[in-house]
């Protein structure tokens, strides 16, 4: 039998669809999209073997901008759909993506349990500390003193700390990236996809429309001065004392991913339908 010719690896550009993003010019999400496509090129996967699942929000538009399979789902439910997809089709590379409002508020409970279940998926959160699509309401990660027309004098509420919560809930890989560092972010996404189990990447992605002061983030970020650890206690100490601008892999654990054996119990759709026949 003659060998099947191997297809040449795709370029990052080949993972971008013909649909042009409609984000505001200057939005950090543009470079996160570039980083995802660069990471897919590094991973040498093919679009038909990758699914990108999202919820609702500016950043959740991302599946439409790639040539991969996509599911632009329900608000806060990206992880529920992504988990189901990975369990049903373990051979696929499944990436969930969205924003801080979608992931930590409406989808907060799914976030905790996705970390706990440790299914082999990658979750990318583009954190701009604001609800951009609905005109600038404070999100769970907004600073308590952020003064705006919609939150005069700030909310006064303590912000959510997603990396610490991810660690405490059992995520197997935790990293922070910045949209101002597209190549570094691409490398982190590739590492996250390769790492078994639930991988979580927080990407600092400025909203230049409602949080123009976030432009200064590009000056604040720097590579984390410490090597990744697989010790949750050490990682917890680091994350609790972190100022939020250290980039890189902050925790890479060794938990076994959850892989239910669903093959034996699967029946034909026609058989399942008979159970619902009245």
């Amino acid at each position, binding site marked *: 039998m003659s060998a099947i010719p191997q297809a040449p690896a795709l370029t990052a550009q080949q993972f971008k669809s013909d649909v*042009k993003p409609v984000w505001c010019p200057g939005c950090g999400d543009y470079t996160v999209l570039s980083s995802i496509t660069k990471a897919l090129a590094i991973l040498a996967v093919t679009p038909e073997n990758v699914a990108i699942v999202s919820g609702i929000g500016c950043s959740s538009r991302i599946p439409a901008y790639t040539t991969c399979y996509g599911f632009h789902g329900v608000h806060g439910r990206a992880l529920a759909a992504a988990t189901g997809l990975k369990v049903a089709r373990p051979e696929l590379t499944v990436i969930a993506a969205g924003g801080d409002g979608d992931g930590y508020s409406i989808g907060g409970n799914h976030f905790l349990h996705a970390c706990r279940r440790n299914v082999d998926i990658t979750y990318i959160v583009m954190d701009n500390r604001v609800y951009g699509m609905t*005109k600038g309401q404070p999100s769970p990660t907004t600073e308590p003193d952020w003064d705006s027309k919609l939150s005069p004098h700030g909310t006064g509420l303590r912000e959510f700390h997603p990396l610490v919560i991810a660690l405490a809930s059992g995520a197997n890989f935790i990293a922070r990236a910045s949209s*101002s560092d597209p190549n570094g972010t691409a490398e982190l996404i590739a590492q996250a996809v390769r790492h078994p189990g639930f991988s979580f990447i927080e990407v600092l992605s400025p909203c230049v429309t409602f949080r123009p002061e976030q432009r200064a983030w590009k000056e604040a970020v720097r590579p984390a001065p410490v090597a990744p650890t697989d010790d949750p206690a050490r990682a917890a100490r680091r994350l609790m004392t972190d100022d939020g601008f250290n980039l890189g892999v902050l925790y890479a654990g060794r938990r076994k991913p959850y892989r239910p054996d669903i093959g034996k119990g699967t029946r034909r759709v026609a058989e399942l339908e008979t159970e619902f026949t009245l």
Partner: protein
Amino acid sequence: MSAKKTARKKKPAGVPARVTRKGAAKRPAAKRAASGAPPKSTARRAPRRTAPYSDFMIQAYVMESDARDRYTEFADQMEVHNNVAVARLFRRLARIEGLHAEKIMKEMGWRTPPAPTLGWIWGHADAPESVPVTELHYLMQPYHALELALQCEQRAASFFSGIARSIAPVEVKRIAIEMAKDEREHVRLIKDWLKKVEKPAPGWDRDPDPPYQAE
């Protein structure tokens, strides 16, 4: 060393600098032609292809191709927001950076682009010749786009000058000096270009009906 300083060294006493520069460029070639010798090549002298040299050229390629990709993305963004003049300008800048990337490919004899060098390699998150993505505005004008491009070329010149002054191997330093010179020439060209473009009036970003208005 700048082109001006080099020209001054060659200047015979009592001859104005401008005349000397023109003459200095023409006279040796004319002499060579008269003697029947083949014309002197203006191409870069082939450097030693050491590993540090190749690594440096990969980095230079990534810098140029990143700049090309960034300008292309910016052009797409501006098209979506119907800012046609700036979209056209970014598209042009992308084409120029693409030519620089192709030139490196040709010089190195690469058939396919090298694997991108990833991670924190610039001493800064973004490549020196890439405009930070947060610097755009949907009402920006060609003048703003050129100002951003100018900053990038200045950063690139300073990046290559830094390598030329570093403890890099001699073949890397030599090419870094040439690249810094090229980038300084780009700085000059963009400065000239800026002089021909209308400066935006104050309040250029005022929009009576903004697309995103916090209520």
